[in-house]
């Protein structure tokens, strides 16, 4: 009800709205939909087997404001753009490195209206926690919508200017690296880097990207590995310096990160990208999974999607169905390698 109230107010007030008109129309439609929910139930057209009825939930296994949260809210808005009469409620269920949220999805097995904004943790967590709390095969991987790569970041006034200087210095002294957890993709990258170059790092688990930034600025750690969206402000302000991107190719030239060389360009064969994508509960029919995959595919053609990719410095990568499953299997193999205890 509250949503209807606020959005009606927002749509009704036409002045100084900075958002793309698509979103605004989406918002207006959502407001209308909420007001009329009761009268609309059941009248939605059922053209291809499955149409969601009533509210759809999208779980975020992390807290509000982070990368997963942003992805969930963008996907939720995207679903409403494609199907104006489907409303998606985003629900944050953080805790236990994501276990809580995924467990909740597992409890909703067979419910086609229970979605989850997923990233690499879905594959990494079962490898790390004994006994595994879940497997990604317990769910229905619907589609990958983007790839999120990471940067190696050092203080702006650090003496090294490239990855080679950095690695040479790291062999003299055990460098401390700020990580968000021992299982997150920054930890995976740090691990891959340390194995491929035969240097040891001291992990310092700081729980969030912004905490890593603060410690880096105070000289308490030597470097950290971050998603671009977590640090681009400090990079622009010349407080921190990116030494390498761990993506396959460089960021597009028009992005502020276009000038950052990849690790591969610098002769270090380490690349890793988190996938960002949509999961549905396990045990749903092919029709139901296809409905959501179609919706996501339609969304990737909209300007709102391109905007999301550009603003968050992601790589647009779309995979669906079996393609996505094959990709997940490959990721699982890479992670098994990277997370292997010595």
């Amino acid at each position: 009800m509250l949503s209807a109230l606020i959005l009606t107010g927002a749509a009704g007030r036409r002045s100084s709205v900075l958002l793309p008109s698509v979103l605004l129309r989406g918002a207006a439609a959502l407001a209308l939909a909420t007001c009329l929910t009761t009268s609309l139930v059941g009248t939605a057209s059922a053209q291809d087997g499955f149409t969601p009825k009533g509210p759809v939930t999208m779980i975020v296994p992390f807290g509000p404001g982070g990368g997963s949260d942003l992805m969930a809210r963008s996907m939720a808005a995207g679903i409403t753009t494609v199907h104006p009469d489907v409303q998606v409620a985003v629900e944050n269920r953080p805790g236990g490195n994501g276990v809580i949220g995924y467990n909740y999805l597992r409890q909703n097995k067979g419910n086609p209206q229970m979605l989850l904004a997923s990233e690499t943790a879905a594959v990494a967590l079962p490898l790390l926690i004994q006994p595994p709390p879940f497997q990604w095969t317990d769910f229905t991987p619907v589609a990958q919508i983007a790839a999120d790569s990471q940067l190696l970041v050092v203080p702006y006034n650090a003496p090294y200017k490239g990855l080679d200087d950095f690695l040479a210095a790291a062999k003299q002294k055990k460098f401390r690296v700020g990580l968000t957890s021992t299982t997150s993709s920054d930890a995976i990258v740090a691990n891959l880097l340390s194995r491929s170059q035969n240097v040891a790092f001291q992990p310092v688990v700081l729980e969030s990207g912004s905490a890593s930034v603060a410690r880096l600025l105070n000289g308490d750690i030597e470097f950290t590995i971050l998603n671009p969206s977590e640090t681009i402000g400090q990079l622009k302000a010349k407080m921190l310096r990116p030494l390498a991107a761990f993506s396959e190719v460089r960021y597009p030239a028009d992005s502020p990160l276009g000038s950052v060389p990849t690790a591969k360009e610098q002769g270090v064969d380490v690349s890793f990208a988190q996938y960002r994508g949509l999961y549905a509960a396990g045990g749903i029919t092919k029709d139901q999974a296809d409905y959501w995959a179609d919706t996501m595919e339609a969304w990737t053609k909209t300007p709102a999607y391109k905007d999301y990719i550009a603003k968050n410095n992601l790589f647009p990568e779309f995979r669906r169905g079996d393609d996505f499953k094959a990709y997940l299997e490959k990721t699982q193999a890479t992670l098994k390698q990277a997370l292997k205890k010595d």
Partner: protein
Amino acid sequence: MKFLRTSERSAGEVICALSFLALGAFVVLDGLQYPVMADGIVGPGLMPLVWGASLAAVAVVLVVNALRGASVMDDLPPPVDGENLSIADFAEDDTEAAGKPTTVAGILILMGLSVVLAPAVGLIPMLGVLVFVCVFAFEREGFLTAALMAIGSMAAAWALFVWLFEVPVPVGSVWQAMGF
């Protein structure tokens, strides 16, 4: 805190202190399964060990104090008259009010029942029952008053939590089965 009779009071004091001792000891022993340190990095076992041990140590002092019958109310200033009230005055007149321990137990049991039956009957209806029983059976305020209170609080709860804030409160499988 002079309101309880000394014998009752010290028995309770000893039980409380002993429970803390047991808790501390349990945490220390059960916590031994977690590594305390690994390569100089603090492990998941350190906090349970340190705090469990400190709790047990303090609990020993509490047990001794309770057995001595002295609660160490260190350096309390004497109450300034008129300006102040001592803590004992705030025990809400326990000595004269008989009190209703059965009601306390009843409320706790009713709350438990609400949780147990909520998936079947719905949380808000169960809370209506809770209100009704409290007002009608515990407080003996008359059937009509109790029923009105129950309906009123159910309506208010629905309006605030379900309608305004869209909390997915369990609606109850019984009603769904009956086709509501």
